[in-house]
């Protein structure tokens, strides 16, 4: 690894070491803190007994299913709204009225309608993912260079070809960005639902550890959730570069 990149790790490592020393000096019995070494041990143990793997599976299934459901609905609506001005005006008030509702505020209703488990969590995640994808893909369509639309008119492209050859490729980099953003939101909302009410997944794992007065395990879960979020975003960034390559650099430079 390059020395420049190593520099970025110096501060976190120093903080971890200082934290370890401080917690050990302050005394071992705390309900909210644990030294990094104890956190690591708790995390390894949770992996060994498989509990954290099951929790991870539950959270990721809910987060991805919600992202897929809300994201595709948002994408379809966003494209339709971006392409058809009349539809956009028709839906404007409705969308602006529903959009500000915090997704978690729907929990009580979702719980009554769907009960505990995956379905309720997926619906809440989908609701949260729908809006950013809808708004950003609508903006992506609206933000297409008008000259490109004129080029498609001058060449007399059919409506299908216009969407397929001009609109979608022109909007794709921004639509992908919308999904990247929504993926982060999906993870946050899934864990939030689990912490608040749903007895599955990583959020529930944190709550169980907290109530069992296990700060080491609780913080272990926290570290693991952070790692998942980081990996998810890094993976999507790599995918973005791989998918759009040189053309993506152009689109972002504009």
């Amino acid at each position, binding site marked *: 690894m390059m020395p420049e990149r190593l520099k970025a790790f110096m501060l976190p490592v120093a903080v971890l070491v200082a934290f370890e020393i401080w917690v050990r000096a302050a005394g071992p019995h705390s309900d909210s803190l644990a030294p990094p070494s104890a956190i690591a041990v708790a995390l390894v143990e949770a992996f060994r007994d498989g509990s954290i793997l099951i929790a991870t599976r539950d959270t990721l299934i809910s987060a991805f299913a919600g992202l897929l459901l809300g994201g595709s609905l948002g994408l379809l609506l966003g494209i339709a709204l971006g392409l058809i001005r009349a539809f956009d005006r028709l839906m404007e008030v409705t969308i602006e009225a529903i959009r500000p509702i915090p997704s978690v505020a729907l929990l009580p209703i979702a719980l009554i309608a769907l009960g505990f488990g995956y379905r309720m969590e997926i619906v809440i995640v989908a609701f949260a993912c729908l809006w950013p994808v809808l708004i950003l893909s609508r903006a992506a369509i609206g933000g297409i260079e008008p000259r490109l639309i004129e080029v498609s008119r001058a060449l*007399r492209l059919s409506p299908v070809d216009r969407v397929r050859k001009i609109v979608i490729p022109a909007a794709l980099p921004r639509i992908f960005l919308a999904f990247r953003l929504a993926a982060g939101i999906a993870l946050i909302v899934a864990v939030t639902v689990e912490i608040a009410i749903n007895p599955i997944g990583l959020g529930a794992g944190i709550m169980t550890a907290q109530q069992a007065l296990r700060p080491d395990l609780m913080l272990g879960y926290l570290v693991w959730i952070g790692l998942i979020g980081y990996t998810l975003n890094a993976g999507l960034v790599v995918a973005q570069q791989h998918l759009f390559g040189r053309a993506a650099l152009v689109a972002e430079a504009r």
Partner: protein
Amino acid sequence: MANPSLARMRADLRGQHPQIAFDHVTLSLGGKTIVENISLDVAPGEFLCIIGASGCGKTTALRLAAGLYQPSSGAVTFDGAPMLTPRRDVAIVFQDYGKALLPWRTASGNISLALETIGVPSSQRAGRIEQLLAKVGLPGHAQKYPAEMSGGMQQRLQIARCLAQEPKALLMDEPFGALDAMTRQGLQDEVLSLVASSKATVVFVTHDLEEAIYLGDRVIGLLPHPGRIGIELPIDLPRPRDQLTTREHPEFLRLRRQLFDFIKASEA
């Protein structure tokens, strides 16, 4: 002063019907008249340049000719048929080449867009693309993206895409306005030779008076607010034209003086 019947007479004398015809064309947008009562005939194979001070409606006139705008009154016809939509045999070269090219397609992909649209089978496209790139002086750049090309190269690419349509008419909107002087002169000569070989009719909008005289068979000057024809000059300079001798020709200098005075008077 403009005399459309004179232009029509000249076209008739050559035994041809006009290819592009403006018949008392007026365009108003949002209560403002942009161009007013323009009558104009362009003969097949003619190279017509339109000049005028900024805001005189020259780009609007070109868009009317392209079918991108519809007149509020009067009519634009192409080969006698009303120009109600753009046509595939009328190609438009936009000034802002950077925005008119598809950034996600390579040079070859951008040309392919036009070939796909006019229905050239995929087996023949690669050969055609290679020919077209060579024609505009971009051989070996097929796999480059527009962002990896200079402004002059991007404009060449846009011209190649337009030539791929095999147009009867080429409408060019200040195509070299954003390029440096050397690149511009090189492209002027290339356009002249491309047009000479394809025999396409050209309507060329520019704010550069010398460019208009250098390229055109005829120059039309528009007066602003609202845009209307203010001057019409046939250019009887020998072809092929040459960047040095043509520009030193006494007739060139006389025409330049005349257009310069016209622009000055129109801005006063």
